[in-house]
């Protein structure tokens, strides 16, 4: 079931003109920033399908940049996000692609700074609702509607149990979890949706577990 709340239907409160192309786009940008964990210095924004065809008219570009600046869907600053990005030192490039993706409203954002970079692919499924479909090459399905943890780790026995144990110790309940890997024995990714926001102390503890290479979170 893609839509679980009445507020997916009556809502969000947002800046016009399009829930899928403006509000959804802003959300994809904001989740990408959340996953990156801090303000990026640069971003390459690839647009596909209807996003690529109509982004100018819908403000998809200003919305994604607004999201990267941590603006919510109803934040009036979205309208002037290009200027604000310049002031905040965020360099960005909008790249309309001709390739077809499975979903017509797809954006892939590669963002980074001098330390790290991250690739996030998101789809806008209507009414402002989104799904993150890929992170750094890992296929996944993340709605951004629940607080979540993304844990990149070496594909070794015990990793998943150790992370689950750490969450259990802090009384964090796991609502949904999936694990994927690109190749056996190499790098794997845990996506863990939880019932409450996770504080940085827990993130730090998880990142100290052996074989864990990177931990990021989305709060809600």
């Amino acid at each position: 079931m893609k839509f679980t709340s009445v507020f997916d239907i009556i809502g969000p409160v947002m800046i016009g003109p399009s829930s899928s192309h403006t509000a959804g786009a802003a959300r994809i940008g904001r989740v990408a920033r959340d996953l990156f964990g801090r303000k990026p210095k640069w971003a390459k924004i690839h647009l596909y399908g209807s996003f690529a065809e109509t982004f100018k008219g819908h403000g998809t570009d200003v919305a994604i940049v607004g999201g990267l600046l941590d603006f919510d869907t109803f934040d009036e600053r979205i309208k002037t996000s290009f200027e604000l990005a310049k002031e905040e030192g965020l360099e960005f490039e909008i790249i309309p692609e001709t390739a077809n993706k499975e979903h017509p409203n797809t954006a892939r954002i590669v963002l980074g700074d001098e330390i790290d970079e991250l690739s996030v692919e998101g789809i806008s499924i209507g009414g402002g609702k989104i799904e993150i479909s890929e992170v750094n090459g890992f296929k996944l399905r993340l709605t951004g509607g629940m607080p979540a943890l993304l844990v990149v780790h070496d594909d070794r026995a015990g990793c998943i149990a150790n992370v689950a144990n750490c969450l259990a110790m802090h009384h964090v309940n796991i609502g949904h979890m999936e694990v994927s890997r690109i190749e056996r024995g190499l790098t794997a990714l845990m996506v863990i949706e939880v019932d409450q926001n996770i504080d940085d102390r827990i993130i730090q503890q998880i990142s100290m577990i052996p074989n864990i290479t990177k931990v990021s979170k989305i709060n809600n």
Partner: protein
Amino acid sequence: MDVLFRNVRELVELADKENKLISEIMIEQEINMSGRSREAIFEQMDKNLVVMEQAVERGLNGVQSVSGLTGGDAVLLQKYISSGKSLSGDLLLDAVSKAVATNEVNAAMGTICATPTAGSAGVVPGTLFAVKNKLNPSREQMIRFLFTSGAFGFVVANNAFISGAAGGCQAEVGSAAGMAAAAIVEMAGGTPAQSAEAFAITLKNMLGLVCDPVAGLVEVPCVKRNAMGAANAMVAADMALAGITSRIPCDEVIGAMFRIGQSMHPSLKETARGGLAATPTGQALAAKIFGSAVKVD
């Protein structure tokens, strides 16, 4: 947490069995699924209602979009209603003008509440604030109007689609109009079954409607599609309240909408490459706004 209803049949059966309003079933499901309190849920919906009121008010005062394609029609309609010459009736035109007002604000990048999307944000509040003047509902009843709309939208979103990019305008303004019709029926004292009939009658008359925005902007024909969506909802609600039923059950109409949307050509699903967007005037407007020609299928 389990959902209480997955389709309109289950929604109506549950409401009948427990002798509850559809809005109440939606509220109970939201409490179930989110774990939040009834008060918190009501408060959030009340905030959405406030945003809708402000958008209508702003639009009725006159707005203009950046492209210059839309704005000011809500004002024209209100003046016309005041002249006393309206043929289709003041209440109907009031709903139409308030739907237009909301979408004009949306096109001008103003703040709106998506119902179920931004492109279709005018229909539900437009009809609500018009019917309000006739039925004098309490604040709670107005909030319930949004929950009833949401219940039907919830079914469509999970069984078909609600965006023009995915299923054409039938999925977007079509769903909004059906949602509004169902909610009008409940506010007017109709039964849950009558709400479902109103939804079915409305959506049947919007089947096949394509999403073909000129220059890719949510303006032409979106604003006037919201106008007609509101009119469609009002008339269908009256038909259902008169006792008229749909020969094709509501869930099957939604199924038909889904299959029509799937078979719709991509040029007619918000890509601005077909339909009205591909007309000579549509093309000329796009070229004027963006300073270059656009691709057409």
